[in-house]
């Protein structure tokens, strides 16, 4: 509105100083325009998911007529049933749940133990070990992929779920994140008090540390679960048995093998997104706040 206003005159600054309500209104762009733009942006963000539902619930022929259908159709259950008969989608769903849950549990336990040690205790090589963790964490994943595959071959784990679970349990990001959290969430006095009570390291970890960092664990848990659920390159490399896949690999395979049957392929894609969406929406309020906090620190 008044955005291109020319610089300061004395009178003007006096006027704005004495009319706080008016100046406040001037300082923001017209509210209604802002809300319209924000709403359009939100619609663009959500629309692909809606379109996924439309495609998954129609026959392929109905999707590709002109003009296309814009409303969900009656064929969702037929398409979903087709997904489960064409490939072992139920198995893929189960595998993904097993992998994502195990990885999340292991990361929370191992990372909180190590982060607690790094944050509140002094021991030889503490700095060196922490630096090594950070540096390796910044190395890109594809550097490790080929040797990792060779290791899995030697262990006989190729095609097995532990090939996805065990390497992912060594999550350096979690140590970094939780260490920050513990430093600010647990006062030293509390540590001293628990020592006077005769608590050893593991008692302190379990009785003092874990309860106090629950929100931090919540964020790391959701983050780890989402990452494990959506992981694609490593499962694609190591899951060589077509009967033991994760959802992401199975969905990609549906596309390349049955690309013509869009209704069915989209039903598979929808099913691979839906459980995660529920997990996210349950913790969304806190999660969206925390991911920003992690970046700003």
């Amino acid at each position, binding site marked *: 509105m008044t955005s291109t206003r020319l*610089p300061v005159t004395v009178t003007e600054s006096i006027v704005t100083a004495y009319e706080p309500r008016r100046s406040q209104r001037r300082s923001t762009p017209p509210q209604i325009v802002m809300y319209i733009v924000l709403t359009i*942006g939100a619609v663009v963000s959500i629309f692909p998911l809606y379109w996924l539902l439309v495609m998954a619930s129609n026959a392929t022929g109905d999707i590709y007529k002109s003009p296309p259908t814009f409303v969900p159709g009656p064929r969702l259950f037929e398409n979903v049933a087709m997904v489960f008969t064409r490939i072992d989608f139920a198995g893929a769903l189960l595998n993904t749940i097993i992998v994502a849950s195990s990885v999340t549990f292991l990361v929370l336990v191992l990372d909180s133990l190590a982060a607690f040690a790094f944050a509140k205790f002094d021991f030889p090589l503490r700095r060196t070990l922490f630096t090594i963790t950070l540096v390796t964490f910044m190395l890109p994943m594809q550097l490790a992929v*080929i040797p990792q595959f060779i290791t899995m071959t030697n262990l006989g784990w190729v095609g097995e779920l532990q090939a996805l679970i065990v390497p992912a349990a060594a999550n350096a990001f979690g140590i970094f994140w939780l260490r920050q959290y513990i430093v600010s969430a647990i006062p030293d006095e509390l540590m001293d008090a628990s020592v006077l009570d005769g608590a050893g390291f593991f008692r302190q970890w379990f009785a003092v540390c874990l309860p106090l960092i629950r929100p931090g664990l919540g964020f790391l848990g959701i983050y780890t679960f989402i990452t494990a659920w959506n992981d694609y390159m490593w499962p694609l490399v190591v899951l060589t048995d077509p009967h033991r896949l994760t959802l992401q690999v199975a969905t*990609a395979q549906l596309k390349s093998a049955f690309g013509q049957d869009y209704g069915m392929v989209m039903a598979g*894609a929808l099913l691979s997104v839906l459980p995660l969406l529920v997990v996210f929406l349950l913790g969304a309020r806190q999660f969206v706040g925390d991911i920003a906090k992690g970046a700003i620190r």
Partner: protein
Amino acid sequence: MYAAIAPFFLLFLAFGVFPTAYSLVLSFQDWNGLGAPEWVGTSNFERLFTDGTFWLAVRNTFVIFVLSTFPMLAIAITIAAMLNNAVRYSTAFRIAYFVPNITSVVAMAVLFGSIFSDNFGLANAALNAVGLPDIPWLSTPLGIQVTIAILITYQWTGYNAIILLAGMQSIGTEIYEAAKLDGAGPIRSFFWMTLPLLRPTILFVLVISTITGLQSFTEAQVLTSTASTTNPNSGGAGQGGLTMVLYFYQQAFSYSRFGYGAAIAWGVFLIVVVFTIISWRFVAGRREDKLSG
């Protein structure tokens, strides 16, 4: 104490440190995974340097990176600035903007493959509806690159907006009050105060976008994959979707060239590091001028 960090570090040593070190050794070897590896010195790197397909992949990756990163940052800053002023429904908006980032890349690539399908896709139907001709999205190299860039922009704009918003909120309100008294309008205070003060956050967002953008793989792999077994994972029409990491994957796992694959991985790493430093300088370097001025 060591019992507490031992489980993590044993795993970390076996699945973090060791593979990285081993891949450096592998890059000097020729090995297909069977039999004995053969030591070949620097010949993998010499080959990489003259490999036209690798440089095509580098070029593709940078085209996709430029096409996605700059629109993404511009839109994300705009959204963040608006969310910073909007008081109502702010949480609902933030959740909506974050949803694209948690939906899996595979599912979205499958969906975008249909939306941007040449003949019947929604994108071309929309173009036709307003009287524009079809665009051959997935049958030309540039079309594929634009589609991948749109997909990346779709998935990461909201995430970056949320982070930029947090950066804006950490700027005190006093400074805006002072600017207001000096008669600075919203646009002026945005460009002369918000943007300079936001520089550390913009830097963070740019570095993250550079690192992830230059290593994009899933978008390209899923969008261009076919059931065909001749030259798999080659990036679709004219190899337009062949990114650096997709080329790495193809050489290492479609053709079992472990030594050459490892050399590609280190080449990609080097390019990413150099380019991250450049974009860091680009944003951070100018801050010193501002502060001294």
